[in-house]
C-alpha cells in the first residue's frame, strides 16, 4: 500500500510499504477513506518530537471502512463505516474505565521510554513517535486498529467524510479544552491558536455557556474563520499586544479561562521569541512555551489554564510566580476521545454542529509532501488538509 513516511525533519515521502495485518485478537484493519494532517503532525514534520524514526508512517486523524476483524472483535463487521479516536485505549484498565482514555495503561508496548522520561506511561497514539507506542499511522491506504472492539465509533453512510472525520481528533480536543475550563455563565474564554482545534474549542466554549470568546492568532484567514464560524472576537498578536488587548476586552480583569491550542512551536514577537527559537534550535529546550507564559500573565486571578496544544519535554523561563500568586488552575492532557465521540456524533447528526468549514484543502495522498509544506508555511491560506488515499 501507499503510506506517508517520515524521513527526517521537513521530509515526508509517499512510499510503498507492506499492508498491515491482524497481530492481536482485538485488532481490526480499516481501509482509510479520509485522513487529516493535524497541527500536531507539524511538530513531527519539523523534527521536534523525540523518538520518531526514519520510515515511520505518520498521521492519527482518520476514518474509513472495516475490511478485516480479529477474532476478539464481535461488535464490528466488514463494511462498517467507522471513525477511530487518535489515542488508543484498551477499555479495561482503571484509567479507561474512568473515561480517561489517553492515560490508558495497556496500549503502549514501548512504555519504558516514557516511564523513564515522565515517570508513568500514557496511552499510545497512532503515528506519533515510539515514546507514544510506535504504532503505524493513518496517512496510508490501510491501518491496523488495536482494541478495535472499544472506542471505535460506527457512523451512518449518508453523511460526507468531512462532516465526520474530525470527531477522530480535532473536535474532541477542542471540546475537552473547553470542558477543562469549567465555564460559568458570563465567563470570557480566550483561545490561543485559531487552527481546527482552536475553532472547535471556541465553538465548544459558547456551547458550554461562555458569554464572550476571544481568538488569538497571526494569520488573517484563521482570524476570519474564527469570526465567521466560531463567532469569536479576535486579536492579531502581530498587530497589537495580546496581553494588553485582552485586559482591555475584559474590563481590566483578564479572561476567566485561557485555552492553549498551539503547543510546543508557539510563535511570539521580539526578543522572547528569538530566545525560544534559538534555544530550541540548539536543543537547549525542547518546547517553545510562549503561549504558556502569555496565558499565565493574561489570565484573571483564580482563573483556569487549559492546555491542549502538545508539549513533549522541557520548557524554560516559566513565570511560575505569576501563576502561584494569582492562584491559577492548570488542566491539560491528550484528549480522551472515546469519552466524547458519541455525543459529538449526535450533535452532528442533530444538525447542531457542522465541522466541515475547517477544511481548506482536499488532496490525494500522493500529494502529502506538498500538503505538509503549505500547511507548515501557511501558504495558500491553508488551515486544514484532508488527504484522500
Amino acid at each position, binding site marked *: *500500500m501507499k*503510506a506517508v*513516511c517520515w*524521513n527526517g525533519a521537513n521530509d515526508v*515521502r509517499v*512510499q510503498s*510499504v*507492506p*499492508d*498491515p*495485518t491482524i*497481530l*492481536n*485478537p*482485538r485488532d481490526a484493519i480499516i481501509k482509510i477513506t479520509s485522513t487529516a494532517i493535524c497541527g500536531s503532525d507539524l511538530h513531527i514534520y519539523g523534527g521536534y518530537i523525540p523518538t520518531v*524514526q*526514519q*520510515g*515511520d*508512517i505518520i498521521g492519527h486523524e482518520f476514518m474509513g471502512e472495516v475490511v478485516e476483524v480479529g477474532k*476478539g472483535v464481535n461488535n464490528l463487521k466488514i463494511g462498517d463505516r467507522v471513525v477511530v479516536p487518535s489515542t488508543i485505549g*484498551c*477499555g*479495561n*484498565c*482503571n484509567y479507561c*474505565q474512568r473515561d480517561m482514555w489517553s492515560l490508558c*495503561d*495497556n*496500549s*503502549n*508496548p*514501548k*512504555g*519504558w521510554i516514557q*516511564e523513564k522520561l515522565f515517570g508513568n*506511561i500514557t496511552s*499510545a497514539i497512532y503515528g506519533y513517535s515510539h515514546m507514544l*507506542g*510506535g*504504532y*503505524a499511522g493513518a496517512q*496510508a491506504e490501510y491501518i*491496523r486498529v*488495536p*482494541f478495535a472492539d472499544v472506542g471505535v465509533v460506527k457512523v451512518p453512510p449518508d453523511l460526507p467524510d468531512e462532516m465526520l472525520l474530525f470527531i477522530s481528533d480535532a473536535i474532541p480536543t477542542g471540546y475537552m479544552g473547553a470542558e477543562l475550563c469549567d465555564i460559568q455563565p458570563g465567563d470570557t474564554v480566550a483561545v490561543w491558536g485559531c487552527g481546527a482545534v482552536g475553532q472547535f474549542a471556541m465553538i465548544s466554549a459558547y456551547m458550554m455557556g461562555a458569554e464572550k470568546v476571544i481568538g488569538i492568532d497571526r494569520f488573517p484567514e484563521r482570524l476570519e474563520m474564527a469570526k465567521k464560524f466560531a463567532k469569536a472576537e479576535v486579536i492579531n498578536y502581530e498587530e497589537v499586544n495580546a496581553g494588553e488587548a485582552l485586559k482591555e476586552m475584559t474590563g481590566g480583569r483578564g479572561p476567566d479561562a485561557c485555552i492553549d491550542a498551539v503547543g510546543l512551536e508557539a510563535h511570539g514577537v521580539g526578543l522572547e521569541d528569538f530566545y525560544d527559537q534559538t534555544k530550541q534550535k540548539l536543543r537547549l529546550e525542547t518546547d517553545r512555551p510562549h503561549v504558556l507564559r502569555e496565558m499565565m500573565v493574561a489570565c484573571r486571578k483564580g482563573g483556569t489554564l487549559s492546555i491542549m496544544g502538545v508539549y513533549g519535554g522541557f520548557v524554560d523561563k516559566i513565570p511560575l510566580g505569576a501563576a502561584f500568586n494569582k492562584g491559577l488552575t492548570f488542566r491539560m492532557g491528550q484528549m480522551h476521545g472515546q469519552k466524547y465521540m458519541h455525543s459529538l456524533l449526535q450533535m452532528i447528526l442533530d444538525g447542531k454542529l457542522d465541522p466541515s468549514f475547517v477544511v481548506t484543502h482536499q488532496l490525494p495522498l500522493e500529494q502529502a509532501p506538498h500538503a505538509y509544506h503549505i500547511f507548515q508555511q501557511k501558504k495558500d491560506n491553508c488551515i486544514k488538509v484532508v488527504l484522500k488515499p
Partner: protein
Amino acid sequence: MTSTSGDKSSTNQPEASEVERWASLIGGGAMVLMGLRQGSLRGALTALAGGGLVYQGATKQSTIQKAQEAIGLNQPIKVEKTVTINKSAEELYRFWHDFENLPTFMKHLKSVKVYDEKRSHWIANAPLDNTVEWDADILEDRENEFISWASVEGADVDNSGFVRFKKAPGDRGTEVKVVLEYNPPGGALAATVAKLFGEEPEQQIGDELRRFKMLMEAGEIATTEGQPSGRK
C-alpha cells in the same frame, strides 16, 4: 534494590511501616528483610520456609556473597518491581501459580514445566541461542497472597524469587510485587547468564510485569511487531 529496607533507624517512616506489613504477611519478620538488605534473598526465603536457623542461614550466605563480591565474582542480579493490576488477587494468583503460564509474558523464559505441587523445571533463553535450565521448588505458598520459589541444587543458575499480591486501596485492583535474584555461576556459563536480562534487568522485569498486566486486564499483549513501515 530500590525500596525495601529493614533498618529501623531509617528516617523514612512510611517505608519502614510498609516493610513491617509485608514482613508480617510473609511471617518471618526481620529475617527476610535482613536477607534482602544483605543480598541473600534465597537464604532468607529458604530459612523462612524451613522455619528455623533463620538468622544463621541468612547471614552465612551473605558473608560468602560479600567475599565473592569483594573479589569481583558472581555479582548477583537482583531486581524488584511492583505494578498495580485491575483484577482480583485471586485471579492473578491463580494465573501466576501455574508457572507454565509465565513464559507467555516473561520473554526471558523459554518454557516452564510443572512436575508436581512443589517442583518445576525452568528453561530460560540466554544470548546466542543458548538456554540455561534448572529445577525449582516452591518454598512457601499462601493462597492469593504470596508464592516464593528457589532453584534446587545443581541448577545452571542459582536463583530465587517471590511474588506478592496485595489489595490496592479503593477499587484500584491488586498490587503485584516481584523480587527476583539470580546468582550467575562461575566459569564459561557466567558471561552468558550475566546477560540473561540484558543490560538493564530492572527495565526487563518492568516490561515483563507490564505484559502480565496487559494480558490480565486487556486479554492480550500490545505489540507493534510485524506492522508496516517505510524502513529499508
